[in-house]
Structure formats: C-alpha cells, structure tokens
C-alpha cells in the first residue's frame, strides 16, 4: 500500500503541475483527493490492514492528502494570478490619450490680477468698496479739489451725460463717497471701470480699470504711504522689487507722488521696455489734500490720510507680456485660454 500511496503522490504531483488552467486542476483534485478519488479509494481499503500497519499507512495517507491539497492550493493561486494578469493585460490602454473631462473656463486676465491685488489689500486690513460709474461732477471733480475751470479737467477728457452727470474719469470719486459714509479709521480700496475719451489703440482705451486706495486716521503719514505701497509691490512683484517715489501733482493730494518700479527687464539699467529710464511708472499717490478732507466733513487738523490710484490694465499687460490693450476687450478664446 505504501507503494500505491507513493505512486498517487507522484502522479498527483505531476498532474497538478501539468494543469494549465482551473478546469484541469479541478479534474486533478477530483481524481486524487475527491470523494470518489484515488486516495479515498485507498483509504477505504484501510480496514484490511493490520493494527500495526494501519497507523503507519493512515499517517502516510494523511500526509499525501496534505501534500496534494497544498499543491492544489498553490497551483490554484498561481493559475488565478496568471489569469488576472492576463485579464489586466488585455485591458491595457494608451494612457497618453487625451482626458475626457469637460473644459474648465478661464477667468479674464483683468480679474485674475484684480483678485490677487484685492487679496493683498484685504490681508493688510483693507475693505473692498464700490462706487457708481455714472457719477455726479461733484464726486469726480469738484469735491476732489478740481473746480469747473481747473486746468486738470483738460487732461481728463470726460464723457458727459448731462452738464452735471458724467462717466467717472477716475475711481477717486469713491474716496469722497467713502469718506461721506464712513468715519475714520478708513482703509479701503475701490476697483472699477473708468472712462476717458481716448480713441482706441494699442495703449489706449476709452474704458479702463483703476484701483483706488484710501487710508484716513489719526497720525497717518507720508512714511506710512510709502511703507504700505512698498509692502503691496513686494507682494505683487516679489520681495526683490524696488520702488521709488518722485514728486508729482494731483489736485486732491498734497504732497503728491508718482511711484515707479525698477524695470524688471533691465534691473534699472535702462532698456527698451522702460524707454531707457530704468524705472516704470506704476501709480499715483499722495497725502489726501486738506480741502478734500474738509469737503467730506473730516477735520484735517485731527485726521490725515493718504490715497493712491493704480491702473489695472498696465499691471496686467506687464504681467502677461501683452503688447496690445485691445486684446483685453476682444475676448477671443484663443487669448482668454492662455491665462
């Protein structure tokens, strides 16, 4: 019987090894260790053995069964993983084919930069406020220390609706509206559309965007103006950026300044971008004129303030290297999709 068992073990091992799929393996399982299998058949003959032989053969039969079951289970695992490998292989795809998700829309470059600027100022404790675009002469000029016959009106060719109502030429009008409605301390910026009767070309548009800033409180100084704008510019253009302030004139600030940023292209050496000056004019600013504070019912002997105004288009065009302002208002997808 020992020989028989050994033979079964041998044959089972070979049959299992030969099995190339689950069916053949199952056939081997049935043949050797099934209820009607060869091993069972042998075990049924156990009754005819002597008492000495029986435990020996029994142990051996169990051993053989154990072997067969182990081999089958090993082979089964092997076959399963082969099968799944094959299945996966058949499912191979070209991972470089284009994705299927719908296209995401793009924000307009003006909004991208404006949102960034808003975030910078909100982080510095400023609120974002709005004012009307169709505005009274009073808010756009008169209250800003630009009376009817002031020569500064000349430099801002104005679209009029009536003698008294116009399209605002500057967001500075919101300074007045803010100071009328809020008491100091005031810290606001006001972005929006402004209008001047400039014919459309690569650097002019009858409609463009400004961002006005206003701070009014006790003890606001020109040093504070410089510090605030420097922080802003470093946040917008990076820690390395350099600015300079130079005297200028606006009717509603005194002292007034223009702020230049050192040319990014030539680092101040002078190049084509900065027209050889090494600096690029970026914004106008100054200490709020005492007359303007007074016009808004704020006592200039107690409070002081500073204001600034920045043209958004200029910043956007420089940021993205856009050389023609018209592109911003043409809304061609091929343009918008680039941002």
């Amino acid at each position: 019987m020992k020989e028989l068992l050994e033979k079964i073990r041998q044959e089972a091992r070979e049959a299992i090894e030969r099995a190339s799929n689950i069916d053949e393996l199952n056939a081997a399982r049935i043949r050797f260790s099934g209820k009607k299998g060869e091993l069972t058949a042998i075990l049924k003959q156990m009754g005819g053995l002597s008492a000495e032989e029986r435990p020996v053969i029994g142990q051996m039969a169990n051993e053989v069964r154990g072997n067969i079951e182990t081999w089958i289970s090993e082979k089964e695992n092997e076959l399963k993983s082969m099968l799944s490998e094959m299945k996966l292989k058949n499912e191979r795809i070209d991972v470089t084919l284009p994705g299927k998700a719908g296209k995401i829309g793009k924000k307009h470059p003006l909004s991208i930069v404006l949102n960034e600027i808003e975030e910078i100022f909100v982080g510095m404790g400023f609120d974002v406020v709005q004012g009307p675009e169709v505005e009274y002469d009073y808010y756009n000029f008169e209250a800003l220390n630009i009376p009817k016959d002031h020569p500064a009106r000349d430099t801002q060719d104005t679209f009029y609706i009536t003698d008294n109502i116009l399209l605002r030429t500057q967001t500075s009008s919101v300074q007045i509206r803010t100071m009328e409605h809020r008491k100091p301390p005031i810290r606001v910026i006001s972005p929006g559309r402004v209008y001047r009767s400039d014919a459309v070309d690569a650097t002019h548009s009858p409609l463009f965007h400004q961002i006005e800033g206003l701070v009014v409180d006790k003890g606001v100084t020109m040093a504070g103006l410089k510090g605030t704008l420097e922080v802003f510019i470093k946040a917008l253009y990076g820690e390395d950026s350099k600015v300079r302030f130079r005297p200028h004139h606006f009717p509603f600030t005194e002292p007034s300044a223009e702020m230049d940023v050192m040319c990014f292209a030539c680092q101040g050496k002078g190049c084509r971008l900065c027209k050889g000056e090494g600096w690029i004019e970026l914004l106008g600013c100054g200490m709020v004129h005492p007359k303007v504070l007074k016009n808004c019912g704020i006592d200039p002997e107690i409070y002081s303030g500073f204001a600034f105004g920045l043209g958004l288009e200029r910043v956007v065009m420089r940021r993205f290297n856009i050389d023609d302002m018209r592109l911003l208002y043409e809304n061609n997808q091929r343009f918008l999709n680039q941002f």
Partner: protein
Amino acid sequence: MDLSMRWLSDYVKTDVDIKEYIARMTMSGSKVEGYSTECDEIKNVVVGKIVEIEKHPDADKLLVCKVDVGSGAPIQIVTGADNVFCGAFVPVALDGAELPNGVKIKKGKLRGVESCGMLCSVGELKVTVNDFPGAIENGIFILDGEYKPGQDIREALGLNDTVVEFEITPNRPDCLSVLGLARETAATFGARFEEHIPKIKKESGNINDFLKVEVRNGKLCPRYIARMVKNVKIEPSPKWIRERLRASGVRPINNIVDVTNFVMLEYGQPMHAFDSSRVAGGKIIVRNAEKGEKITTLDGVERALTEDMLVICDSEKPSAVAGIMGGEYSGIEADSKTIIFESANFLGSSIRSTSRKLGIRNESSGCFEKGLDPENCMKAVMRACELVEELGAGEVVGGIIDVNNAPFENRKIKLDGDWTREFLGADISDEFIKNALISEGFEVSGDVITVPSWRGDVEHKADIAEEAARFYGYDKIPTSQIMGTSRGLLTQRQRFDRSIENALLGCGCSEAATYSFISPKNYDKIRLPADSEERNSIVIMNPLGEDTSIMRRNAIPSMLEVISRNSNNRNIEGRFYEIATEYEPKKSDELPNEKPTLIIGAYGGNNDYFALKGIVEAVFENVGVENWEVAANFKDPTFHPYRCADIIINGKKSGIMGEIHPEVAENYGIAQRTYCARIYVDDMFENRKVEKTYKPLPKYPATQRDIAIVCDMDLENLEMEKTITDSIGKILEKVELFDIYTGSQIPQGKKSVAYSLTLRAADRTLTDEEADKAVAKALSGLEKLGAVLR
C-alpha cells in the same frame, strides 16, 4: 517744455553731467521725459577755409577747391556750387563724415578729379536760412565771420546745445519758462540763482500821448500792460537769440518777433507785438465780442465770435482774439516803424473755452489757459524793451500803460515744523524747510512764509510740506507701517459673486470683459420693438462715435458681439460669462440704477438650451439659490419663441434664458445656434439660502417606483412634476424624469414620459402597499392633466 541747457546756463550753473541733471530734476519734481543733443547726427564735419579755386578740367559746371581744414596741407574738394570764393569759411564734410539725412561722405573722383570730401549747404546740415540769415538755400553755406579751420562745425555754429524735455504739471505754469526751471534747478542743486531785473537805458516821449487802453471786462483780463517802441529797424536777430530760439523749437523770424518769442520762452509770458499804425483811433479796447462779430485771424481764416469770447479791439474793430491769435494785418511788417508790446493776463478758463470753440491751440493759448501770474506781465514787457534796446532794434518810448484789475496780495502761511515732520513722518529740520523755500523764491521771516506771486498753487501748510519734502528727497522719507488694527474682509456680496464665477468656470465658461457703452443700433439687432421701454438708455453727450454712444441697458448685445467675434475667428464653439453692469435710467438729474447682471453665452458644439439650463442650475446650486423655477416665454423678441424661458426666483421674474432668435444671430453674423442667459445678480443674492443646517442622513431604505405615461406633446414637464409632488406629499423624496419618447406606438401629437419616483419615510420602511398607493395618487393627479398610464 523744451529747455535749452545753453539758455539755462545764462542763469544758473550746475557742474553735473546731463544724466545726473535729469535724474535729480526728476526726483525734485520736474519730471524729465527725455533729452536730445542738437545735430548729434552730424559727424566729422568741420570748418574749412577755401584757399584756392580752379576750374575742373573736364566739366564746365564743377570747381576744384583747395580747402584748409586745419590739418596739414589743404585738401582737394570738387563742388558744383558757384557761390564759393577764396577766403570763404565753409562747412566741410570730411572723408567718413555723416550728415543728418543719413548720407555718408566718402573720398572719390568726380569726372576724374579726386575729391576728398564735400562742401555742405544749409539744407545738408538740416538748418534753415532763418537760423543763419546770411546764408542762401541753393549753394554752399558761406559762414558769417572768422573761424579756425578744422573746428567742429557743430561747435562753430552753436549747433551743440542739449535740449531737455520736461513734463510740467498743471499746478506749475511758472515752470513753463526758462526762468522757472532755472529757479527749480538752483533749488535742486543748491546753486545760485539771481533774478535778472531788466534795465532800460534810454526812453523818450510818452506812450500816453499816443495810446489809450480801456479794459471793459476786468474779470477776463486781470491785467493789461502796453509799452511802445519807435524807430524800429526790422532785421534778423543776433546769433545768440537765434540759437536759443532754435533749440526751443521756435523758428527765428525777425528781431521784434523773435524778442516776443524769446520773452515768452524765458518768462513764460506770451507777448504780442503789433504795428501801432494799425491801431485805429489810437485806442485799444479789451472787451467781449459782440453778437455776430467776426474776425479774420493771422492764418487767413474767418472766425465767428461769440459773446463769451474776449477780443482786443481798436476804435473800429477787433484786431485779435485775446491771448490766442492776432487778426490779419495786425502783425509786424518789414516797414513797421512804431510797435506796441502787449503783455497781458487773461483768465485761464476763458482762454481754454475760447480756444476750444475756435479750434485754435498754440503756444500762447496753451500758456494762458494754465492760469498765469499777472505780476509776470510787467517783468516780461520790461525784458522785451530791454532786449529791443540791446539789439538796437528800436527806441523805447517812455511811460507804461498798466491796467491792473487784480492787484497782487501777498499770501502768508505759518511755518509749522512740528506739524510738517509729523505729517511726512520724516525728521526735516526747520532750517532745511526755510532754505528750501527761500531758494524757491519764498520769503521767510521768523515763522511767517510769504508766497511769491508765481506760486498760486501754494495755499496751505500741506503745500509747504510738499516743498520741503521734494527738496529733502521723497526717497529719504523713511517707510513705516500704518498703525492700528483693522479688519479687512470681502463682503458677503463679493464672496457671492466669486461663488457664481467659480460655478461658471467649472462649467467651462470663460470670463469676458466688454465695454459698458454700445451702439443704439444693437436694440434693433436684438429686435426690441421701437416703443420698448428697454430702449431708454443713458446717452453720452460727447461720445467717441456711435458705436460707444449709449450706456447699455441690456448686456446681451455685448455678449453677442463676443460670440460673433469668436465665431468669425473660427472658434467653432464656446462658452462665456460676464457679470456685466446694465444702466437703467431714472430721472434725468438722477444717477441711473447700475444693475449687475449675469450674462451667460454659449454657441456651437454640444451647446443647446439644456446645456445652458444646466449651467444656470449649477450656478444656483453653488450659490444657494433654491426657490426658483422657469416658465416658458413665447414673447421675448430676442429669443427663439419656443426655446426660451423666464427665470423666476421666489416668484419674481429675475432673468431669462434660451436660444437666441435666428434673426438676431444673423444680425450679429453668428452662423451657429446661440444661447444666452441674463440674470439679475441682486435677485439671486437676496434669495440665496444663507444658513445651511445639517439634516440627519436617512435611516430607512427608499422605495423606487417608475411610471411611464402618455400625454399631449405640449404638456410641460414642470407641470407634471408639480402634480406628482403635490399628489404624493411628504413621502416623495425625489421625482426624476428619465425618458421622453415619441414615435411608433405613441399616437401623433402625444409623447410618452417616464419618471422615476423615490419614496421614503423618515421613521419606517415603507410597505409595498404604501408605495403602490403613492403611485396611484400620482397617476390620478396626472390623469387630470390628460396624462394616462402607458
């Protein structure tokens, strides 16, 4: 303002190079736009002296000259001009020379004779016979006077001035002059500047014996000064005047005209010189023009005057438009013998409005309209007389007619050092402030500052702070952070708008930015009826053109233009949005209502009504607008009558969406089907769900039931959904349409609609009987609409 550095150096000397000069002037507030060196294109052209002239052996019209150019033996040059002579000093372009027209001169042979350069004409050096009165146009430029052969021609002719272009801000008309900039230069560099006081050596007679001046409108003419010069000899001005004028961009004409221009540039005070024999009745009257009055100005144009314009008249008729342009015949002629200098001050705003109305803008009007200093009139007229005497151009007549309607009053401001330091945040000493002011022509005694007449812009201690700061240096003011705490926060509304945008971007819509003004023709293009209220728009009085002449009342045209442009640029499909402002007029003296409106536009590709509606749904979902529905709109003229719906938020019409009417699309040249939505953002914002609270997740399973019904083709889904909802009541969790079918087995004019109902109770598992009952309720409700189970 173009400043001749040569002229500047007559009054103030600085020892810095031009680059530093420009940088420091810019930083003290006189912004330099650029600078140029005169004739710097001319290279290697020198003075030559002709020492020998021979005829060309082979050409009748050519001459062979030997020219001493200061280096060794005379060189040989062939010329075609016949005005040369031995001993003449001429400009010689040497071998390798460059001329302003870009021509390079090379050695060569002319008809076999060697020529080592070229003798130049006036034109070849890009100067004119006005600049050099002795010279002729056609021929070699024979220099006037003695020169050293070999000297650079630019130096010899004074063509080497440097001209700096300043941007002068409107508050500083005093800097539109050589003297004003000299003062700024001195203050910037700490150099000495002394005001020149004109002196006239000899006067004879009295102007009052010949002339009377009457100013009838003292408001428009605060000052009028007249002086007289007799025995005038009209001739060219001397070189030093001509070269200063030329560098400043003014063409020299004759001594008298040149003197008025010279004084205008030097003092910033426009002057007018006229022939006294032309003043009828010996009387000058300054008055408003009369109704219907006309004048033919110097340029030969007849101009109609209006009553608000100021004119200078004699006893008969207007001879000049005050401060703007003289009348014809009023100028100086070659035979003028006695002339009158007018040095007057006119109200800036009046000059500006007159110059606009007449369409004349010139140096004079440009100066006056900035608002000049009346005190400067006297200085200028004295300087003019001084120059006339110095040039020997005439004899100054004694006496001055001075009509002064605005006697100057000194303005005084208290010097407040502490306030200035605190205001600027910079430690600038009182001493520094005083010195800066004094160098600018202010007087300071103790703590009282007296403002000079030409600084009308200085009124307040903040102005004094600016004077101190700009000479101290803005860059030296330290930087500091603003004090105090402040809370910066976007408002709910600002965050709401961003939330709208995020949803749209996720739906593949790109943001557009369009002009707020449109052409009124758009209202025809979107098929608004002629009497539509929506045509009533804010109209711009002075638009650039019709295309931008009204403020849009409806932003759909803006979107259609975007789509049109894209479609025509062969972008075959697209989705856009803009939160655009629409301008709704109120009463004429009131500001309009500026309505933020969400415009969505889509065309081509997979876009259809339902794609658009899906975008709208996504937006509402994202911003928490829940209480809304749509209702078919068959009437809006802009939209396809059967593919358009009103958007109703909380019972109020708050927008519209649909397919653009094919005629409208055609009007905009759009070939593809186009879809637009227009929704008022205010309505969305007001009806957003502000508070969000958690609802427990369901504990019991839902039961699903599908029903298919047949109904009339025109029966709307919304009505059926509402009926199902109302019929079943609380246990209906969701009703979802999943199929619409027409075709075989369905009668003509009918459709089959299938809904999936989700039923659930919060407190138990529904039984089959309960679910069946709910379906039965729904079906009986639907039956009333004529919809029957299929």
